């Protein structure tokens, strides 16, 4: 499919997009692992898993917020505000994921069982679910709208 408008060949764009993808991979890994460690705590009552979950959520939120802020500046600058029109599912999805994780991190401050069962575990699962949907939308952004795709003229 040839591009309808001439695309930039700037490698800075690739670097910029790579940085965003690197940052965004942190919350994806952290929140997925937090679900795993929540399940581990639920099954074993071993408090070590609760401690893992709390740190994973914090790390995921911290880098996730950095990724979101970076994306909020990078994508409009690189692709123009027109791109926001196609990106809104990603934007809303990202906000939902981060909000869920934030609430979840607060739930995880409880001392023991009630930090995970039932609400912590539920929120961890919802976060991963929301993340899957968001990533799916983000991927469709690349495939359907060619965001971040580089063309050689």
């Amino acid at each position, binding site marked *: 499919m040839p591009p309808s408008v001439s695309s930039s060949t700037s490698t800075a764009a690739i670097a910029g997009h790579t940085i965003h993808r690197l940052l965004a991979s942190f919350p994806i890994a952290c929140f997925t692992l937090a679900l795993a460690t929540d399940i581990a705590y639920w099954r074993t009552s071993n*408090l070590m898993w609760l401690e893992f979950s709390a740190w994973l959520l*914090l790390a995921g939120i911290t880098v996730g917020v950095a990724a979101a802020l970076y994306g909020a500046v990078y994508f409009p600058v690189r692709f123009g505000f027109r791109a926001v029109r196609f990106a809104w599912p990603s934007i809303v999805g990202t906000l939902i994921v981060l909000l869920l994780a934030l609430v979840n991190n607060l739930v995880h401050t409880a001392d023991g069982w009630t930090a995970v069962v039932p609400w912590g575990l539920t929120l961890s699962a919802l976060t991963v679910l929301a993340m899957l949907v968001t990533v799916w939308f983000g991927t469709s952004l690349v495939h359907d709208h060619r965001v971040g795709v580089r063309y050689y003229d």
Partner: protein
Amino acid sequence: MTDRFHLNRISAVLGTSLLAFALVGCSDSGSDFDVLSQIGPDPVLPEPSTELLPDLKVAEVVGWKEGQAPTVPQGLTVSLYAKDLVSPRMVRTLPNGDVLVVQSRAPEGKPLPRPKDVIREWIMAMAKGGGGGPQKESNLITLLRDTNRDGKVDERHDLLKGLNSPFGIVWHDGTLYVAAADAILAYPYQPGQTSITAPPKEVAPLPGGPINHHWTKDLAISPDGRFLYASVGSNSNAAERGIEAEKGRAAIWQVDRATGASKLFASGLRNPNGLTFHPETGVLWTVVNERDELGPNLVPDYMTSVQEGAFYGWPWSYFGNHVDERVHPPRPDMVQKAIKPDYALSSHVAALGLTFSMNSALPEQYRRGAFIGEHGSWNRHAFNGYKVVYVPFENGKPSGKAQDVVTGFLDGDQARGRPVGVAIDGTGALLIADDAGNAVWRVAAANAAAQPSQ
């Protein structure tokens, strides 16, 4: 397009806020809760509530300005007994009338396993005050001598220095027993001596670090002088560091003074302090700090007589058989064993000091009961504690509501001081160790500033 975008965003935000609301929905709504209903043998216990953001309100420590003092009711007078101490937590009167003041700081290096521990440690440090600059040396025991019994300190000597976070102290039969953060130490000491040079003998080890969360170990001696009793607080709020971290903790130990042989005397007491034998009945009493983060009105701290071999619930249950759902796996067998304590002091007051007032020279209405030092709350929006209360006793049991005796430690949202240990001095007046105010206060009968007790 923009309209659709807008609608979608609103529904998304609404969805998440609804979820958040559902989670906080069960949080505290009882600001009209009557704190007095939690004082006495049968406290009102509301349902536990979990705040998304745990209540955390600590009074910033500002200290006492020249001329400022706590407030006492009519018939009593308060005076500054000693100042410029470094975090005094415990006062004890020796048979010759000399007063020992134990000053200490928490041991350092406690592991912080979760982000919340790191954040809370930081906030708590802020509340302790002291500001920047090097800290003055603490972890010492100072002797205060009122030579002419006029209620004023005439001599002051640092008796022991460089201790490992001492708290409890007892003198008996030529020996000064000091409960450090990890052991009971015995120093040869005769009343009158103003220095101790002999090295201590370790009577018995006590559960210590590296966590040592509730590190204050209080000490008492049985009326017959045979046994020492040492209190050991829990390593956590509600066993969230694992039950294996609680071995030998949340308990009172009985230690044979001669051999050091130790056994658990009572357990399930989250953070017991103020070990004191009732002078008439010879029964051991303690005040206990109960658990946090179940809401502003749970769980009441309490004062109780300590029965040998008894289990008081922590961590599985509170005030008898009220199960704490946070502790998993549940132990219905332990919950069933749990004894209900004698007397609730209301929630989060942080009772740390206890002394009976028999043999005091205070006005008649304060002569048959217990004084309790309440360090003050952090886990509720409205401050509770930050005062010394008096509970009247009859026939060896509490017989009425706790009354405020020494107040004025708070000034709005700031703390001038925070009471900890209490004791009766050689003249029959009440002494209060004020760790945040770095002072010891003396409360006497107003009509006789220094009335000898014998």
